[in-house]
């Protein structure tokens, strides 16, 4: 069964197309990764799913019902973890969760039980009476999650829930996501941390310029790049480097320079390493190391878009 179906979804801001005719299905029990660079349109898509934004065109169906026909039903079944921490700093952790859960119709003893459950789940059970003002970034992020799950939504949408936090909190959150999934929640997980997505997501869509440019399991996505070869060359004096001259070498698909790392992907069947090295020597570039990369999501992204995920 599909928890979410998106059909031909488009969002324009004026003339700018942020989401471009996107179609997508998320099945029950999935942790669906939404991968894309800054400004790719991830948040915009998520905001339309959670009816924060109106779509310019297209349809969104939650658990078989179109949100256009029954927005209350959609809202009841979705929990949203916003990209920016969305809590009241002057209310205790307990009051925050309880207030938001109350908006979903929970009352009395039931509300109390679910609030405590959510706080315990994110490891803030002993901080119920504390004000988030005094929380660390990681604790705030966890409270941000607790506020989204107390009403036990079927679909939880997390928009970069791990931005800017310590590794410990990050692991905690990633484990919580897995556990929520085991408890039966379907999750949409947005990030530009490749490793996270690779670790927890069962299926991944790569978004670029408002479009899904690839979709599948990690294995399926990596298979896209098996016919390409990725070589990373650490160089010194990269300022003199003429990237265009490398680009024109036979078989080269994309080239980019990050700090001292020259990242080149080429067609798999062509052996052009000699030509590349010759060019670098000719340009008087000092070569410090050469490394062939096994395909990962980063190289997939790089191959598909010619850009790094994080610019």
């Amino acid at each position: 069964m599909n928890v979410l179906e998106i059909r031909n979804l488009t969002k324009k801001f004026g003339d700018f197309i942020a989401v471009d005719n996107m179609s997508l299905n998320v099945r029950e029990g999935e942790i669906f990764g939404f991968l894309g660079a800054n400004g790719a349109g991830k948040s915009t898509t998520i905001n339309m799913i959670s009816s924060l934004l109106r779509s310019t065109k297209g349809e969104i169906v939650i658990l078989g019902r179109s949100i256009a026909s029954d927005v209350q039903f959609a809202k009841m079944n979705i929990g949203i973890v916003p990209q920016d921490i969305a809590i009241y700093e002057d209310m205790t952790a307990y009051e925050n969760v309880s207030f938001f859960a109350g908006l979903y119709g929970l009352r009395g003893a039931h509300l109390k039980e679910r609030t405590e459950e959510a706080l315990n789940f994110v490891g803030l059970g002993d901080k119920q009476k504390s004000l988030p003002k005094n929380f660390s970034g990681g604790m705030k992020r966890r409270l941000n999650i607790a506020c989204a799950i107390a009403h036990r939504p079927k679909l939880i949408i997390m928009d970069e829930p791990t931005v800017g936090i310590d590794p410990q909190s990050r692991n905690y959150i990633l484990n919580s996501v897995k556990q929520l999934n085991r408890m039966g929640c379907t999750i949409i997980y947005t990030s530009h941390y490749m490793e996270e997505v690779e670790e927890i997501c069962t299926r991944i869509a790569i978004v670029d310029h408002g479009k899904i440019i690839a979709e599948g399991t990690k294995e399926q996505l990596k298979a896209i790049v098996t016919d390409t070869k990725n070589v990373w060359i650490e160089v010194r004096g990269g300022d003199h480097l003429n990237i265009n001259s490398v680009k024109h070498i036979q078989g080269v698909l994309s080239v980019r320079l990050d700090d001292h790392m020259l990242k080149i992907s080429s067609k798999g069947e062509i052996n052009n390493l000699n030509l590349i090295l010759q060019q670098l020597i000719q340009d008087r570039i000092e070569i410090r190391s050469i490394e062939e990369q096994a395909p990962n999501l980063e190289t997939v992204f790089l191959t598909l878009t010619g850009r790094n995920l994080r610019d």
Partner: protein
Amino acid sequence: MNVYNIALREIKSSLREPRTMLFMLAFPIVLMLILGTALSNVFSNFTPVDNIRLLYSNESGQPQLTQYWESFSQEMGRQGIDIAPIASGQVGREQVREGQYTAYVELKADGMQLYGSSKQSIESNIAQGMLTAFADRYNLAAAAFRSDPSKAEAILANAGAVTGGEFIRETSLNPNKSPGSIDYYAIAMTTMIALYAAISGSYLFRGERTRHTAIRLMAAPIAKGELFAGKVIGCTLINFLSVLVVVLFSKFVFQADWGSHYGIVFLVLGTEVVLAVSLGLGVGYLVQGESPRAVVMIFTQIASFVGGAYFPVESDGSFMGVLTYLSPLRWANTALIGAIYTDDMSAAWQTIGLNVGIAAAFLLISIVIMRKREVL
């Protein structure tokens, strides 16, 4: 239930914001104390009427008017006002301009002309008030004369003898009861702080946006109307609560006079808070970006200034005088002074009507814009 929860949260949050509470409570109370004591002598001695010198000429040729004027001027004389007929060779306006007289009155067949001194504006205002009272009374008599001459006699006779002091009384609020400085500033600071509710109004939804909690509110299965009502009610209640505290504090600590009509006093203040919150909210929606706060701040400052928050205002027909009428504070102050000191509720009801009407307009604007917008 949602409305209740949202309102309650709003109130809780405000109560925990010590800076706001301090501002809404300590600020007016301290100002009350400072202004009330520093400016007390402005209030203690009202302009004595014996400074008033009135020059007149009577060219009306109407015995009735002349007779009435005589009895009027005798009475005024007893009250300590100098009234003199113009001597031949004198030019009335020149005399006033040179400061010999407070005002010059010309009685003519078709009416009365008054030239007041701009140097002695308070005195000439009093003179004007007296003459208006005189003219009203005379017109009444003249109207009566046409139908029943004997009644007219009675009205005129009465005017001179029995209620002679009334001419002066009508110009000041009430001879026995008028606000002292702490009384005045208790009212003025309270209405001012009620107007400051506009600031929290302007921040009501923008605050949710900057905290990003707007996202959760919009994603929750509640109607926008519930959210709107809850927040407006919460904000109004908490601001009204602080107004209430200021009133009680000034009454019991400063012994300020709040009269005996508490119902109407709180109705004026309550509707003023509603007006302020709606105004702030409306500006918050109408003005883009970060400027609503500035707009509301400037508005409340100007309204306070011209509305009599820092010193009592006189409306004298000048630009500033007209401006004062645009200040909600001026309405509220007039209404409260009327209700407290002269038991006169007419200004209060007018103010309540104005407050509610304007508030409704701003709420409507906000609702329309909110419904159109995607985000809060």
